[in-house]
């Protein structure tokens, strides 16, 4: 058994950081990046443009007052003709605060909207970005391996777009219309 000391959590566990404090902190530390703040039911949300994303996220990770070292989740959202968005959720193990970053993108279609990849900063982003690329058709530049994850390798459809249809459930299997004299 190794004699490594046990790691302890430095912040008081369970104490939630109020959103206004976190907003002030982000505004003060990363004042050079133009962002907009909003709040949702669980987190503070920051809207960043795709061009500023890499600078902003590097600041989130490297500035010691913020110390967001954990990228939890990357979700894509398709708003149809109004465009798309990518939602990143961050967490800090050092301070216990959580942040959501929204990146608005243009609507789905060819050519794909382009976002810088966070794989160089957070290895956990690797598979999340592959999933977002496959489901929504968002290109991540700088990603080492942007292949399909859930679908077959040669299939280039984007199932989670609102324009992608569902297939019809078969009511009578293999029979297009019922036998004569019978209506469903």
């Amino acid at each position, binding site marked *: 058994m190794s004699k490594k000391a046990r790691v302890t959590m430095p912040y008081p566990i369970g104490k939630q950081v109020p959103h206004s404090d976190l907003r002030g902190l982000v505004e003060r530390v990363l004042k050079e990046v133009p962002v907009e703040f909003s709040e949702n039911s669980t987190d503070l949300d920051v809207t960043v443009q795709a061009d500023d994303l890499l600078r902003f996220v590097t600041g989130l990770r490297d500035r010691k007052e913020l110390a967001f070292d954990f990228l939890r989740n990357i979700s894509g959202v398709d708003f149809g003709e109004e465009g798309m968005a990518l939602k990143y959720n961050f967490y800090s193990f050092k301070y216990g605060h959580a942040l959501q970053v929204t990146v608005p993108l243009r609507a789905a279609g060819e050519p794909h909207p382009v976002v810088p990849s966070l794989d160089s900063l957070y290895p956990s982003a690797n598979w999340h970005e592959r999933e977002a690329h496959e489901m929504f058709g968002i290109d991540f530049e700088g990603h080492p391996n942007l292949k399909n994850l859930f679908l077959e390798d040669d299939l280039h459809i984007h*199932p989670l777009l609102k324009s992608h249809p*569902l297939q019809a459930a*078969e009511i009578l*299997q293999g029979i297009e219309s019922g036998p004569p004299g019978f209506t469903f």
Partner: protein
Amino acid sequence: MTTENAVATPAIQPYKPDFGAEPERLQPVDFPDAKAAYRIVLPGVIQTGADTVLAVSRKSSLWPMTFGLACCAIEMMGAFMSNHDLDRFGIVPWASPRQSDVMIVSGTVTKKMAPAVKLLYEQMPSPKYVISMGACATNGGPYTEYDRVLQGVDKVIPVDVYVPGCPPRPESLLDGMLALQRKIMEEKKMVG
């Protein structure tokens, strides 16, 4: 020549064959135990038709290839375990397709997985049966509307028994296995 010249030759005797003494007639044999002779000479021997023997041996030792895909696999494992024991029916889960008799497709078959299902079915030697367990393997189940889901495993392999449920209780799977056993006994006179 006169009619007195009727020659007093003796008439030809009609032929009377000589059968000898009449043989003893066969009487019904009265065995006190009513057992066939071979059962007295060789006790422990049963005589039936060959098709019944083959059908009984096939149904009594069905080795399923556990093809557990999703949630139904958990209920299938529950059916194999001690609480709802399937081993008492001779059903032993066997992972290899080359040595198994029945393939229990339990779980959603996606279009990405369908070639593997077909390959595994073709790797099984005859006689082979397929039980489609759960709603997803029957017709796509709750996920039928998503376009990457195969609407029923019977689109790629022929199915013998469908077990409904989401997931079916282990007793339902047991009922499905017994139905398969009845089906095997019914088709015993079919060639091949």
